[in-house]
C-alpha cells in the first residue's frame, strides 16, 4: 500500500515534467510566441507564401488543407483566433553527417524557411520534410542524408497518450490491489470489461488457455494504445487531433511488433506447415516450391495488412470528416448563402461520421488485437495428435 502509494505522485510529476520538458526544449518558448505563434495572419502569409492554411493563400484548396491535417508536422497548430495563429513549436532533432542538431521548429519561420543550413520544404514531393538547404529537389550524390528524429506533432501525441495510458492503468492496478476483495469501482469498473473481453474473447479463444498469458501484455497494450489514440484523433483540438493511428509509421511499428512476436514464438509445427503445407498436392511443392513461396509471402502480408487496415481506416475517417468541412468553404467561396446552406448538411454528416468513427475507433483496435492474437495462436498451436 505505502510502496504503491509513493510512486503515484512521482509518476504525476514525471508526466507533467515530460510534457513541459518537450515544450521547453525550444529554448526561447516565450520569444518564439512573440515571433511566430501570435503573428497576425497577414504576416504569416507574407512569411510562408507556400504554407497554405487552405484559405491563407487566397483560394481555398481542400486537398492541401485535408493533407495538412492528416499528416505529421513539425509544429502543432492549435487554433486560429481572429488573425492570430496559436501554434506550439516543437523541438527539431536532426542527425546529419554524424552530428546532432537540435533547435526549435519556430526557427524555420523566416523567408528562406531554413536554419543552420537545413530547410523545411514548403512544397513539392518533400513538403514538410527537412532537407539540407540548397539541395532540396536533387540531393548531391554522396552528400550525407538528413535523419530527422524531431519530436513532431505525432511523436508528442504518442508521448502524451503513452503517459496517459500509464497513469490510467497504473492507477487502475492500484485500485485492484487496494480494493482487493471488493467490487470494482470508478475507472476500474469502466476498463475491467474491456480487459476481461481481451483476455477471454481475444486471447483465450485465439491462442488457447495454456499459452495466452505470455501474450497478454502485448495484446492489452496494443488494444488500449490503438483505442486511446483513435479516440484522441477524434478530438478536434489540442491534446487530441493528431492523426496517430492514421499514420503509417505508427501502424508499421505496431505491425512489426506483431510480426516479430509471431516469428519468435513460431513452433516447429508452424514452420513445418509453411515449408510443407499439409493438404496440398505434392506438385505444388516440388520441383517448383510454389506453396512454400506463397506461405512465406503470407508471413509478410499478414502484418502488412494489419498496418494498412488500421492506417487506411483511421485516415479515411479523418479525410471524410475534413471533406465535409471543406465542402462548406468550397460552397462558401461561390456564395456565402450557399455556404451557410451547405453547412447544415455538412455538420449533420460530420456528426454522423464522428459517431461512426467512435465505433470504428473501437472496432479497429479490436480487429488489430484480434488478428495479432490469431497470428500468435497460429504460431503456437500444437499439432493435433490423432
Amino acid at each position: 500500500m505505502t510502496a504503491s502509494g509513493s510512486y503515484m505522485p512521482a509518476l504525476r510529476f514525471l508526466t507533467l515534467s515530460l510534457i513541459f520538458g518537450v515544450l521547453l526544449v525550444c529554448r526561447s518558448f516565450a520569444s518564439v510566441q512573440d515571433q511566430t505563434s501570435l503573428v497576425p495572419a497577414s504576416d504569416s502569409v507574407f512569411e510562408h507564401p507556400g504554407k497554405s492554411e487552405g484559405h491563407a493563400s487566397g483560394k481555398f484548396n481542400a486537398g492541401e488543407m485535408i493533407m495538412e491535417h492528416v499528416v505529421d508536422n513539425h509544429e502543432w497548430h492549435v487554433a486560429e483566433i481572429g488573425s492570430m495563429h496559436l501554434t506550439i513549436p516543437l523541438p527539431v532533432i536532426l542527425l546529419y553527417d554524424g552530428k546532432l542538431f537540435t533547435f526549435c521548429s519556430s526557427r524555420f519561420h523566416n523567408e528562406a524557411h531554413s536554419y543552420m543550413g537545413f530547410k523545411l520544404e514548403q512544397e513539392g514531393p518533400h513538403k514538410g520534410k527537412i532537407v539540407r538547404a540548397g539541395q532540396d529537389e536533387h540531393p548531391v550524390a554522396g552528400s550525407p542524408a538528413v535523419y530527422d528524429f524531431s519530436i513532431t506533432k505525432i511523436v508528442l501525441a504518442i508521448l502524451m497518450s503513452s503517459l496517459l495510458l500509464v497513469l490510467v492503468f497504473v492507477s487502475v492496478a492500484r485500485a485492484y490491489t487496494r480494493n482487493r476483495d471488493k467490487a470494482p469501482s470508478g475507472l476500474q469498473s469502466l476498463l475491467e470489461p474491456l480487459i476481461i473481453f481481451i483476455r477471454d474473447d481475444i486471447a483465450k479463444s485465439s491462442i488457447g488457455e495454456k499459452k495466452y498469458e505470455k501474450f497478454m501484455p502485448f495484446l492489452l497494450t496494443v488494444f488500449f494504445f490503438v483505442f486511446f489514440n483513435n479516440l484522441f484523433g477524434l478530438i478536434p483540438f489540442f491534446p487530441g487531433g493528431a492523426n496517430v493511428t492514421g499514420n503509417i509509421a505508427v501502424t508499421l511499428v505496431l505491425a512489426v511488433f506483431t510480426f516479430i512476436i509471431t516469428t519468435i514464438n513460431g513452433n516447429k509445427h508452424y514452420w513445418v506447415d509453411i515449408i510443407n503445407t499439409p493438404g496440398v498436392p505434392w506438385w505444388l511443392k516440388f520441383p517448383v516450391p510454389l506453396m512454400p513461396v506463397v506461405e512465406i509471402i503470407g508471413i509478410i502480408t499478414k502484418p502488412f495488412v494489419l498496418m494498412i487496415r488500421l492506417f487506411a481506416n483511421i485516415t479515411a475517417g479523418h479525410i471524410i470528416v475534413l471533406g465535409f468541412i471543406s465542402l462548406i468553404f468550397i460552397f462558401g467561396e461561390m456564395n456565402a448563402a450557399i455556404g451557410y446552406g451547405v453547412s447544415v448538411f455538412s455538420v449533420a454528416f460530420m456528426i454522423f461520421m464522428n459517431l461512426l468513427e467512435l465505433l470504428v475507433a473501437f472496432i479497429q483496435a479490436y480487429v488489430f488485437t484480434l488478428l495479432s492474437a490469431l497470428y500468435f495462436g497460429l504460431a503456437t498451436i500444437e499439432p493435433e495428435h490423432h
Partner: protein
Amino acid sequence: MELITPGLGLIFWMTLAFLFLVFVLGKFAWKPILQMLKERETSIHEALNAANQAREEMKQLKFSNEQLLQEAKNERDALLNEARKVRDRLLEEARIKAGEEASRIVEAAKASINNEKMAAMTELKNQIAESSLTLAKFILKRELTDPRKQEEYVQELIKEIKFN
C-alpha cells in the same frame, strides 16, 4: 507521397514509446490487474463451490438428523415395548410366585396343624393310657385281695401270653 511514407524519426520514437509502454504497463498494470482478476475469479469459484458443498452437507445433515430422530424414536418405542414386556413378565412371575408361596404356606400350616393334632392325640392317648393304668391299678388292687381270684387272674394272663 508523404501519407504512405513512414518517417524514420516517427518509427524510432514510436518503437521507443511502445516498448516503454509494454514494459511499464506490463510490470505495473497488466500483471497486477490480471493477477487480481484471476484471484477474484478463483475466489468466486471457490466460494460458489463451498456454498454448493455446504448446501449438500446441510442436506446430508438434515437427512442424517431425521434418520437419527427416527432411530431415536424407534429405540424409544423398542425400549418402551421391552419395558412393558418386562413389567408384564415381572407381574406374572410375581403372581405365580405369590400363588406358590401362598400354597406353600397353606401346606406348611396344614402340616403343622396335623403335627400338632398328632402330638395332641399322642398326649391324649398317653394321658388316657396313664389314667387307664391308674384305674386298672386301683381295680386290680381291690380285686386281688382275694387269693383265689389272684390265681385265676394269673392263669388267665399265662393263657394270654401263650397265645402271643
